[in-house]
């Protein structure tokens, strides 16, 4: 093989300059060391929450004190865990109105090409009339179907009974330290209820989660798709958050009732100072289907493993994920499935790319309980390494407690094959373009699962990386 052919193409990192271009706010809040019950009570009081929620928060705080930081996975030393209060800033420091957002930030959004409506919702709908209009137009079209789509604070007022029944029932605060933290200081997020037998045509998007005080970092998403219904929910936006905080401990709880289907799509592109310690879980009843589509591009550290609990006979989980770890990133992502009923099915398809010293980890589990007779599970993990400075690890667990199963797991790690590049180059394609084509082909199965505008966004993110393809 010639030296020239072996020469590695330098692949450019996703440029964050554009996203990161804003002036830091100076907060007046003086943080107390440690998170105290008083601070948690204050959060609850400011939101005028019912007393059970205040209690829930305080209990979560107790659990938070008791639990340790996970000893496995990425190093979280840089997260100032003893001084966690620095991440829980009081809402008075937030800007709610687009008008209050500094000019340079608005310009950044404009340069990013984020539509006006999104500017508004990112800045918070609380004081923004334009966003109210947009928000209500979506709301009205689905409201005709009886679909409830609210921010969590409003939901807690208007559907207190439902929230009390479901809130953190699937991800209890005792799950792990950051779930406990979430239970104590959660703020913002979305609540969706789809009544039985409805097919919601338009995907719902969680742009408006930034509405609420303190939102963005500890938002809670609760979705109930009732019997026989369908919903596509899109979480996170392709735009970055305007945020100086660097811990995200969100929580997503999804309930898919009998015969219902929920598609939950995420493109995460947090800024690179973010510790993204997010917990997502779905409980699937008889013949229900959960489809996760997950793209992880941003953050400094991610620990994200959407979990599907198939508790009803014939329930099904699909996971399609792509993780792209560039310089300075440690993205530890994957999927967890528990087969807890007969005739359940899971398909996990995960792809990762690492480059520039980034680390991409697939971590997952498929657990087939003794009840899950006649279950099927297939797992496929593929990792592409673009240079020798990067890391790619695959850490799956397969736990089977019954004999009537059909389980297959495959994983591959490698780089772009020289033969494929030579083939394309022999057809007159430059080496850079050949590599770009191969990378695009690699992520194509994920891209096609995304709504068009998100697929375009993802392709743009990838194209930005590849030298010679940027116009």
């Amino acid at each position, binding site marked *: 093989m010639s030296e020239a052919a072996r020469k590695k193409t330098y692949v450019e990192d996703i440029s964050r300059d554009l996203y990161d271009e804003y002036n830091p706010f100076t907060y007046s809040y003086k943080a107390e060391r440690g998170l105290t019950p008083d601070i948690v009570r204050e959060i609850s009081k400011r939101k005028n929450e019912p007393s059970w929620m205040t209690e829930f928060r305080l209990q979560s705080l107790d659990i938070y004190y008791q639990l340790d930081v*996970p*000893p*496995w*996975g990425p190093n979280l030393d840089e997260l100032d865990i003893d001084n966690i209060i620095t991440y829980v800033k009081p809402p008075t420091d937030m800007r709610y109105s687009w008008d209050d957002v500094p000019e340079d930030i608005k310009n950044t959004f404009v340069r990013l090409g984020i539509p006006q409506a999104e500017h508004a919702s990112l800045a918070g709908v609380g004081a923004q009339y334009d966003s109210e209009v947009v928000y209500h137009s979506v709301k009205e079209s689905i409201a005709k179907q009886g679909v409830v789509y609210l921010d969590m604070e409003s939901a807690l007022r208007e559907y207190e009974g439902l929230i009390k029944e479901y809130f953190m029932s699937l991800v209890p605060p005792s799950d792990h330290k950051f779930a406990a933290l979430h239970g104590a200081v959660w703020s913002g997020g979305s609540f969706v209820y789809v009544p039985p037998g409805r097919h919601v045509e338009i995907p719902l998007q969680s742009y408006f989660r930034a509405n609420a005080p303190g939102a963005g970092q500890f938002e809670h998403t609760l979705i109930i798709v009732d019997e026989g219904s369908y919903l596509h929910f899109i979480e996170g936006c392709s735009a970055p958050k305007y945020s100086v905080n660097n811990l995200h401990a969100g929580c997503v709880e999804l309930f898919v009732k009998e015969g219902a289907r929920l598609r939950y799509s995420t493109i995460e592109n947090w800024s690179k100072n973010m510790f993204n310690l997010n917990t997502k879980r779905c409980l699937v009843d008889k013949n229900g289907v959960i489809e996760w589509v997950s793209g992880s591009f941003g953050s400094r550290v991610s620990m994200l493993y959407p979990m599907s609990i198939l508790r009803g006979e014939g329930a099904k989980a699909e996971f399609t994920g792509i993780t792209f770890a560039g310089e300075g990133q440690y993205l530890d992502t994957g999927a*967890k499935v528990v087969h807890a009923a007969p005739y359940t099915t899971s398909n996990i398809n995960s792809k990762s790319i690492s480059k520039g010293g980034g680390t991409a980890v697939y*971590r997952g*589990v498929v*657990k087939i309980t*003794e009840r899950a*007779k006649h279950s099927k599970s297939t797992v496929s993990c593929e*990792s592409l*390494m*673009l*240079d*020798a400075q*990067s*890391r*790619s*690890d*695959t*850490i*799956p*667990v*397969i*736990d*089977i*407690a*019954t*004999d*009537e*199963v*059909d*389980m*297959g*797991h*495959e*994983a*591959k*790690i*490698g*780089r772009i094959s020289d033969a494929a590049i030579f083939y394309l180059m022999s057809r007159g394609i430059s080496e850079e373009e050949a590599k770009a084509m191969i990378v695009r082909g690699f992520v194509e199965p994920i891209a096609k699962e995304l709504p068009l505008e998100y697929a375009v966004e993802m392709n743009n993110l990838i194209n930005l990386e590849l030298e010679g393809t940027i116009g």
Partner: protein
Amino acid sequence: MVITEQLNELPVKTYRWLKVNGLTLPEPLELTVQPYPKAYLTFTPMAGLTVQAMPEVHLKDRLGVDHAAYGASPELVSLSETQHNAGVQVHAGRGVKCPDPIVVSYQCSSDSPVVVDHNVIYGEEGSSLTVIFQYTGDGSSAVHNGTLKVYAQPGAEINVIRIQHMPDDAHHFDSIAAFVGEGAQVNFVHVELGGALSAVNYKAELQARGALDISGAYFGGGKGRLDLNYLAEHYGEGSSSQILIHGALQGEAKKIFRGTIDLKRGARGSKGRELESVLLLDERARSIAVPLLLAGEDDVEGEHAASAGKVDAKKLHYLMARGLSERQATQLLVEAAFQPVLDRLPSDAWRALVRQELGWRLSQCPST
């Protein structure tokens, strides 16, 4: 000595709720090491081959090799290295090719239920040799704790065969380390059939163009527990490893497979492959697989595959339609799963032994 430490720790930890990061003994295990008076060594003497029982001198001093940690646990390794009551040291000189296998057979019995062996195999440049270890016994409360270190100097080929068919209430602990030199080849074939608890740990360090092959077959029955841990660390360019493990679980047997291929930075052009497949013969059987693939180098190929399922119903019916009972048909299909390992055994006598031991165990509990 009381054994309390966690065994077979996963090289990279994961979720705690799954309890797969290591094996905690249900209760501390007390071990009393008494002299082991039996003969256990059979070999054909030849020029350039030195075989000694009870290695007193640790090879590390002689080789100047800085040993990385290895084994099921530091406690077990230390017990074996310092208090062994049996063991062999095999040394093949430069270019020495040994045609006949060296056979080491350890047998626990009621008068000497505890075997603690420490074994070292050293193959000089270009040498080749085969060593067979057999672990068996007929008494109750048998315990085996052993270490084996294999040093393959450049171009050496060392074949190690380990056949374990201890009594069903026995404890079996195996700590094995291989140092695979440039262009050397180390092949392990191991069969695990007995024991209430078998904790087996293989670790290999591969230098440039070094090759490692581990073929394992296991059967778990009754309430037996099998805890298998494999680690292939690729340091040199162009090294290759292959870990192929097949097994069958019956009754309430529980098996955990931890297999790690670690392609270190600089191990350009290396390949690692692991495959684990299990036949589930009982709905109460429990099978856990944790196949890790770690890569700090892009110019590598790593892959793993794991599969689990029942005996193929079509094949079973086919055989039964030809007059075999369900048990016979099942046994035939389990033997088929063992075939890749049976093929690697050095003689028909060993193959017959494994078949017989397997058949006897399969017939212990009714197949469902």
